[in-house]
């Protein structure tokens, strides 16, 4: 059975006549989550998970034609039953399950198997064909537990305070920023950049409670930040705003920070491998749990990961998509520019 095909515009559901996370304008787009490389501008109609609705409207435009479904609720489109299931990536992120005449395909979008105590945790779904991301599809990427990484970050903040420094965390505004807020909850007052603040508002409109944070005013008083915690999106690395923060010690929070070369490349004061993606073992366990007959591997280390899956006896193919590892750089530089200028 051929339920989906990979086209120039995106992943297409043949009988359903709709696309999953398309990168070119189409009539009907089913969206896994709100990151810019998955939820793009220009679709005639959007369908997403309930918690993503406000985020999409905030990011793409208030007037888009959009419909939403809660997790685990089925909707029939041209005879294909579509449902969203928790992907644990960012708030509102979903795996998209398609069922047609008893044949099931699951598309992950982006996902994380570890519970971050903020997003609804990833749920494995049995299927015939599984379309998985592979952002961190190399065995060098294995994350520390949430408690361990939290301890490291707390220790770093403590050290900064001892040296009279302000701790600045860098993380993209949808997902990572809220994650950092959760990890730092109760440590000290959290200041967030307006791009993050606006997204927080959009998220809270869906009824989700986030840790308390303060908007970093455009003309903030330096003294107010002394020894406190600030969260900024990646586009502000090297910005005047960052330079204005007194005695700032800067840390990037990203899975790429697992590698020393990357930490040193960024030339910041610290790097924490806090990722919203599945690590190597996470990807493997997710694939195995689906019991899928065929696995399609998208963006990331697709060549390596699918070759390895084939070697361990799981039929796998790599797929070229326009989703990318650049969400941290790309989406934020776009949103920030419009919001600060």
């Amino acid at each position, binding site marked *: 059975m051929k339920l989906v095909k990979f086209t120039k515009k995106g992943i297409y559901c043949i009988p359903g006549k709709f696309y999953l996370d398309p990168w070119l304008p189409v009539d009907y787009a089913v969206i896994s989550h709100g990151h810019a490389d998955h939820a793009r501008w220009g679709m005639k109609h959007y369908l997403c998970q309930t918690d993503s609705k406000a985020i999409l409207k905030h990011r793409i435009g208030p007037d888009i034609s959009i419909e939403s479904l809660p997790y685990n609720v089925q909707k029939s489109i041209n005879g294909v039953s579509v449902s969203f299931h928790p992907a644990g990536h960012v708030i509102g992120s979903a795996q998209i399950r398609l069922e047609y005449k008893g044949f099931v395909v699951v598309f992950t979008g982006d996902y994380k198997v570890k519970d971050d105590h903020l997003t609804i945790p990833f749920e494995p779904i049995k299927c015939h064909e599984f379309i998985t991301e592979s952002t961190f599809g*190399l*065995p*060098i*990427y*294995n994350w*520390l537990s949430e408690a361990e990484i939290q301890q490291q970050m707390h220790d770093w903040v403590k050290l900064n305070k001892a040296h009279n420094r302000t701790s600045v965390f860098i993380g993209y505004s949808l997902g990572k920023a809220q994650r950092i807020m959760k990890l730092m909850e109760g440590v000290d007052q959290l200041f967030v950049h307006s791009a993050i603040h606006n997204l927080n508002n959009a998220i809270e409109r869906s009824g989700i409670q986030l840790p308390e944070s303060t908007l970093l005013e455009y003309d903030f008083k330096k003294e107010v930040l002394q020894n406190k915690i600030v969260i900024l999106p990646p586009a502000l690395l090297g910005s005047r705003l960052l330079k204005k923060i007194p005695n700032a010690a800067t840390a990037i929070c990203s899975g*790429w920070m*697992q*590698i*020393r*070369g*990357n*930490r*040193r*490349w960024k*030339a*910041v*004061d*610290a*790097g924490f491998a806090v990722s919203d993606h599945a690590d190597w073992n996470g990807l493997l366990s997710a694939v195995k749990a689906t019991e899928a007959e065929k696995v399609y591997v998208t963006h990331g280390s697709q*060549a*390596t990961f699918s*070759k*390895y899956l084939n*070697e361990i006896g799981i039929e796998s193919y790599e797929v070229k998509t326009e989703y990318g590892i*650049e969400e941290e*750089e790309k989406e934020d530089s776009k949103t920030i520019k419009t919001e600060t200028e």
Partner: protein
Amino acid sequence: MKHFSDLISSIEITNKTNAKIDALVDYFSTASDKDKLWVITLFTGKRPPRPVKTALMRQWCMEITGYPEWLFLESYSNVGDLAETIALMLPDPTHHIEKSLDEWMKELKKLTSKADEEKKQYVLNAWSGLQMQERFIFNKLIGGSFRIGVSKKTLVNALAKYSGIDANQLMHSIIGNWDMGSISFDELLQGEHINYDNSKPYPFCLAYALEKELQDLGHPKDWQVEYKWDGIRGQIVKRNDEIFIWSRGEELVTSQFPELVEAMEVFDDDFVIDGEILALKDNAVLLFNDLQKRLNRKTISKKLLEEVPIGFYVYDLMEWNGEDIREKPMSFRRDLLERLFSLEKRAPHTVLSEIIEFDEWNDLNDIREKAREFNSEGLMLKQKNSPYHTGRKKGDWWKWKVEPLTIDAVMIYAQKGSGRRSSKYTDYTFAVKTDDGLVTVAKAYSGLTDKEISEITRFVNKNAIEKFGPVRTVKPELVFEIAFEGIAFSNRHKSGVALRFPRISRWRKDKPVDEIDTIEDVKKLITDPS
């Protein structure tokens, strides 16, 4: 090892030298005497021999993880460091071992003579008892270079800040002869094993790039003009039968150039001279690339000594038989220097920097243009009355470099860098047009900003042909201006030409591929010296 591990974590992350120094000072203020001595040993490259071969460590890691070799290699090419790759791939530790740096180093030393099976048991036990970062450091302690962005100079500056002792003296102390076990940390710092009076260097006198017309410098007769060389600026200190070679960066590099030490031994006089360390074969100056083969090696093989012989071009004399003559005029110092290094008495491996004769300023234009032909990078203009200044002072010494040659070429291969650059494609191969396609003319890896490198990396990721391994063939689309210092015909290269010192001068986003240079254009740049 946690203490040492924390030290490494905090110095490797930052590229602010002061932050590194602070971390080292913190460490020196709290660590045990022996551990501190080990830190000095490790950071000055005085490492004991490697007890376990890398091939074995790789093999054991694959055994434990069950990953095929291609996956291991793919991971390695993404990390760029073997010790780190292994540390990242191994499963979570099952227990925790805490030992001091001194204990680890002693155990590793004993391991050298053991059988492979015993080594394996020891290493595997350590791997399962250490956290990721500690494991990485353990692997580094076993072997490989301990390069984490701390130069000898940084280490010395930290020791100076910690102890209040003069940095150059400390440089001599840590480079000097000492053994673990026979000296305490404080004794080492105090320099009880050395005589600093014999090695003490002078600050180098530095020149600015020429920023005015030659005519405005005054009368040509008041100026001494020499060729400028692109090697390592060095200072040779010879006092009381001891010989020291200092580099511009105030590092002691004596042991790297044994032939220079030998050459200095023939002199009866004591002196301090300034000059350039160059690769010098059959009286011709070789490229800096050749000289680089000689640098930062633990041992220098006989083969290397023959392949890349070293010469010292002598520029100036600062001290003669105990007398500091830096305030005397240049002409005076030069006379003395000529007497010392007169042709008759010339020691091997030393060359007195030639003074260029000229009558009018305009004569120099031609001379400068031709400098490239024998690997000189231009001219030095020095006021004959000038003292040997401390540091950089405008007006008396000028450097007047040749303009680089440039071509426009297209990128055809990209390769990942190592260390800090391991996640990005930073090393590129460039080609120019031929009648029926493209031919490689140069490899270059410097000259771009981090932002440009990130942009190229995205392009490579999107447009590469290969999926595995470190090298990527890319669509010939990105055009760059390549600058270089010289060009010659070469049988060793398919293109028939060899460029000297190629580097990227700018990214020509404005230029389409069909407008790049042809190999014929490139060959036209070769000026026949005859």
